[in-house]
């Protein structure tokens, strides 16, 4: 008997999709026989907009490229401009940058936890973790004035001095989060029903994964300790102590465990930053005037490790005050197409949201 194949669109209006994108699924019963990713619902043409803005104007919009974790964008932009214009950043500013990036990473992991637990109907974890993420956003607000978009890491340094007592408050928050992470272990990571759902689902494995350009938890979840903070260090990461957690199973649960360990590592890094940050020092270098801030006709590539994987910027100057070309490469582009599509084939419909969340697919960075 021939079984009927139906085609459905999982998204863009669907509670189980990570943002505004869609996956076209061919289903036989509830088993997926073919998957196609569709993006473009969030395309804003950032790369075009940046071509017609001066560096300072462009700085204000880059953070909007990826919404859950905007700071790697700012860091990338600043690093690329500094490298092209030959600007050195002071040590204190670098420490503050590391601090901001790690706080953002922690926030993004907490947000991921909400999505991952939501995808298996464990809403309680999401309610708790978004609350905890909000406490981080409160600190961001004290530091930068913005909850979500910070516009803080600026070429030449950072934009503002730390407010009084900021490091103490951060330290107190870290103590609190450390305790909360144990609660999450009990409720989420060690929960037998979550393990039952996540183990053996969405398995990525083999030597081949290195050649396919994956990054982040996908690699670390199948045994490769790849982390740009260690492999290709930027800022002050080569002076900080931290481990790169890995798992060997390569499934959804392995990636979740990697993220669980990464949250603890972020806290560890933040504690070191608090201890080592110089008390005094400039946070901002003297920059050329707005209209005179030009980039030479050269190009470069910088990449940082975001909460989901390698986030790279290609930047080319042309001697004018505008940036000739800035191309963004988020980890999601490869994950959403050349990883997700084959990974979904043969899975059940109920695992689509689970797998998408574990890959951390973030549509705004795919299409910019």
């Amino acid at each position, binding site marked *: 008997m021939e079984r009927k194949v139906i085609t459905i669109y999982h998204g*863009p*209006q*669907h*509670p189980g999709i990570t*943002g*505004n994108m869609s996956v076209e699924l061919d289903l036989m019963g509830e088993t997926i026989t073919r998957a196609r990713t569709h993006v*473009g*619902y*969030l*395309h*804003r*043409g950032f790369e*075009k*907009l940046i071509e*017609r803005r001066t560096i300072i104007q462009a700085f*204000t*919009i880059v953070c*909007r490229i990826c*919404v*859950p974790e905007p700071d790697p964008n700012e860091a990338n932009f600043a690093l690329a401009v500094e490298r092209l214009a030959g600007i050195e950043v002071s040590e204190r500013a670098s420490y503050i940058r590391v601090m901001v990036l790690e706080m953002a990473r922690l926030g993004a992991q907490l*947000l991921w936890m*909400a999505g991952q637990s939501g995808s298996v109907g464990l809403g309680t974890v*999401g*309610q*708790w973790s*978004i*609350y905890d*993420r*909000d406490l981080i*956003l409160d600190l961001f607000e004290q530091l930068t004035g*913005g*909850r*979500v*978009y910070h516009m803080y890491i600026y070429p030449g340094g950072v934009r503002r001095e730390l407010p009084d007592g900021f490091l103490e408050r951060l330290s107190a928050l870290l103590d609190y989060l450390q305790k909360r992470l144990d609660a999450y272990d009990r409720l989420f990571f060690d929960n037998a029903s979550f393990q039952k759902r996540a183990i053996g689902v969405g398995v990525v494995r083999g030597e081949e994964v290195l050649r396919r350009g994956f990054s982040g938890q996908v690699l670390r979840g199948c045994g490769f300790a790849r982390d740009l903070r260690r492999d290709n260090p930027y800022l002050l990461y080569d002076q900080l102590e931290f481990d790169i957690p890995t798992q060997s199973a390569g499934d959804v649960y392995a990636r979740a465990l990697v993220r669980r360990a990464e949250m603890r590592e972020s806290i560890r890094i933040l504690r070191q930053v608090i201890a080592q940050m110089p008390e005094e020092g400039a946070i901002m270098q003297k920059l050329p005037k707005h209209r005179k801030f030009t980039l030479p006709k050269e190009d470069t590539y910088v990449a940082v490790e975001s909460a989901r994987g390698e986030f790279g910027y290609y930047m080319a100057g042309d001697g004018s005050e505008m940036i000739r070309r800035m191309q963004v490469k988020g980890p999601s582009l490869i994950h959403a197409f050349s990883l997700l599509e084959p990974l979904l084939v043969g899975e059940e419909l109920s695992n689509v949201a689970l797998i998408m969340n574990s890959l951390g697919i973030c549509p*705004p960075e795919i299409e910019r």
Partner: protein
Amino acid sequence: MDEGFIPYQQSLEDEEQSIKSTQSVIEQAIAWFRAHSMFVLAYGTGCGAIEMPPTFTSRYDIERLGVVGVATPRQADILIVSGYCSPKTLKRVIRSYEQMSEPKYIIGLGSCTINGGMYWDSYNTIKKLDDFLPVDMYVNGCMPRPEALIEGFVKLQEKIRANSSEAGYIQYRTRYAHYRANQERLFGTQVQPRYEENFAGMNL
């Protein structure tokens, strides 16, 4: 309508006392129930969607006001257009809006829905949401904080209780030609079926 955004927003937020006083008791009761039970369609159209989880969870807990998320447009009363809309998204948003059953309301979240915001010169985002869909309440900011979104809901509650004849869904019926013309102009050849074809004969 006056020119500019501020008087326009003012007209959205004004409580229409005169109309309210002419309502019968039953009408007022119905309006009260509508205002205190708002089902929001879970469709994060743009980056404003990032402030919706905090709004809906323990920190801000908008469920206190009777606002909950629902999965499908059929069950929803309120559509939040959260931020910039590319034409490709707008098509889906219009489709979702037309599937909702009346009375239905739209909240435009973020500066991008008002005037394009950061993306005023982007070739792929619309600049004025109320050209294409009737917006009942705008919440400005980039990002609007959760408090701002809650404020928007409270203002919308007032508007629902006033039971105005200028509510968005009534305008969408009466001035459909206007909205449709704008949609057709933007989408060109790739337009979707007309709204009448969706709601013809479905009135109970």
